[in-house]
């Protein structure tokens, strides 16, 4: 059993943010697996998605029932092999799994920030991650790997710190959030706002807006699946019954599943963090600072890219990845792009472990050899 210990890094100076504000006393919760090589050239940063955290693989204790969120992919002897690479994963600022977020104490008031927490962006997350990498004494990452929101961070790494990373692996992601996704995020936040417990974000720990957050999660969860995967998994099956109840309680297996997902989510996630992280994604638009020209956005990038999308992902469809690839090619960047055939929808990035893992393993292996050749 792979045991990993959560670590904390508290910044020694404030974090300057895109919104113009600065965040004092920032803590990043992170975990590392594997050993940093003497040349410090085998570090891979894994960036997590909306509901992820720093616990990417392994267990925190022998009593843990569940491993980290990408345990099938990351670990000793796995596709992202921690016998070979030093894997780092940090909870994003604004999150609720150990890093400074809206439920942290505002040093100016002594009370939780709640909605006084500054709005953070994907770039702010990357700035914080860069501080951590500097703190760990790593001058150049071998790669940044991430799916969904993690892929957004990975791409920003390539233009914010082009010298500091050799390879970028954005998976099931997009270079700008579509109006459809912004709409889903909005409805999710509205659901939380309508929860009487929410109190404009000033809820107390005993009375959290669970109904609202669960509804937001159920809505979002639908966007992570596909018509095909729902049909295959649930069909029109009824849950623990043979006939319709002729009322509005849950009858269908798919209803029961969503309810379960919502309940599980509120046990580990915070409603205000949900506000901040979805907002960070809403504002994500790599082309915007460059007059809408994505090719110009990537003009500073130097890393090699492996871009991966999935056929049934309708949240961040392959057409988005193709835009990214096109912009990278316009800058003559070495890019590989694979659209993996999968029925799992957006969730495929967590489920298609073999097809995705093989690409990641071989891309990293070649990248690692190339880095050695360049440095040796």
């Amino acid at each position, binding site marked *: 059993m792979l045991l990993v210990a959560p670590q904390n890094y508290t910044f020694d100076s404030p974090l300057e943010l895109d919104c113009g504000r600065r965040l004092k006393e920032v803590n990043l919760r992170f975990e590392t697996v594997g050993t940093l090589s003497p040349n410090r050239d085998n570090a891979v940063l894994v960036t997590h998605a909306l509901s992820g955290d720093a616990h990417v693989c392994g267990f925190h204790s022998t009593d843990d029932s569940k491993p980290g969120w990408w345990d099938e992919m990351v670990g000793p002897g796995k596709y992202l092999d921690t016998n070979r690479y030093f894997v780092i994963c940090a909870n994003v600022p604004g999150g609720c799994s150990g890093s400074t977020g809206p439920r942290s104490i505002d040093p100016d008031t002594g009370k939780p920030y709640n909605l006084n927490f500054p709005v953070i962006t994907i770039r702010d997350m990357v700035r914080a991650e860069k501080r951590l990498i500097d703190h760990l004494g790593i001058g150049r990452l071998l790669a940044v790997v991430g799916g969904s929101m993690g892929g957004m961070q990975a791409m920003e790494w390539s233009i914010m710190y082009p010298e500091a990373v050799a390879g970028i692996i954005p998976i099931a992601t997009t270079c700008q959030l579509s109006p459809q996704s912004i709409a889903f995020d909005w409805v999710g936040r509205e659901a939380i706002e309508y929860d009487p417990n929410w109190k404009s974000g000033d809820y107390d720990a005993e009375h959290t807006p669970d109904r609202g957050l669960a509804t937001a999660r159920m809505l979002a969860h639908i966007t992570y699946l596909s018509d095909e995967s729902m049909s295959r998994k649930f069909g029109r099956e009824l849950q623990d019954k043979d006939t319709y109840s002729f009322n509005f309680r849950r009858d269908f297996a798919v209803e029961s599943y969503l309810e379960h997902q919502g309940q599980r989510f509120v046990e580990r996630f915070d409603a205000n963090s949900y506000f901040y992280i979805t907002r960070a994604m809403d504002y994500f638009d790599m082309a915007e600072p460059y007059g809408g020209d994505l090719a110009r956005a990537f003009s500073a990038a130097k890393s*090699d890219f*492996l871009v991966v999308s999935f056929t049934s992902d309708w949240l961040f469809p392959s057409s988005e990845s*193709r835009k990214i*690839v*096109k912009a990278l*090619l*316009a800058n*003559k960047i*070495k*890019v*590989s*792009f*694979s*659209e*993996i*055939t999968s029925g799992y929808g957006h969730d495929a990035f967590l489920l298609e472990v073999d*097809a995705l893992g*093989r*690409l990641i393993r*071989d*891309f990293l*292996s*070649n990248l690692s*050899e*190339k880095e050695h050749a360049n440095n040796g």
Partner: protein
Amino acid sequence: MVEAMYIDFNRRRDLGIIKEMVTPGSRVLDLGCGDGSFLKMLRDECHADVLGMEIDADAIAQCVANGVPVVQTNLDDGLDLAGDDSFDLVILSHTLQEVRRPDVLLRRIVSVGKQAAVSFINFGHFHCRLQLLMTGSMPRTTQIPYQWYNTPNIHLGTLKDFRRLCRHLDIRIVEEKPVGMNFPLLTAAMPNLFAVGCVFLLERA
């Protein structure tokens, strides 16, 4: 790791000819690049800056294993990922006959590349002609071993047909290198009858 390196130039003489057309340091795009072994050779031996395009997921995974950048693309979708004049040479070997609109693709590759090397299978070869004449059935050869109903080769033509198409599309044939099997002199003299294929170096007129 899967390492596909071996290229049988005896079986694919056209690739040897195309390799000669690659100038060191040039930017090369191979359409339908398979497992990327040819591109890997062009990168390592000709110091070319290479990119492959391929539709098959397994072949793409092999390219990644070979360290060759590859982009999943359906050639029937118009090569919209590549900008005009973004490559020095675009390679299309034994692939043109599989696409839905060879004319559209040809026009596109001479705008994406400053030049294009197209390796064309010659259906005017005397074996094909004889099979059709003597047996009355669609020809099957070592290069095109399929039946008419299951072949991916949906646009077969002769060298003469190809030249005519280039003329029609305002594409200039810079070089024409017939590939023969057993009759080098006859192949050189009458390629449309004796060449099994031909490598055409093309550019916009």
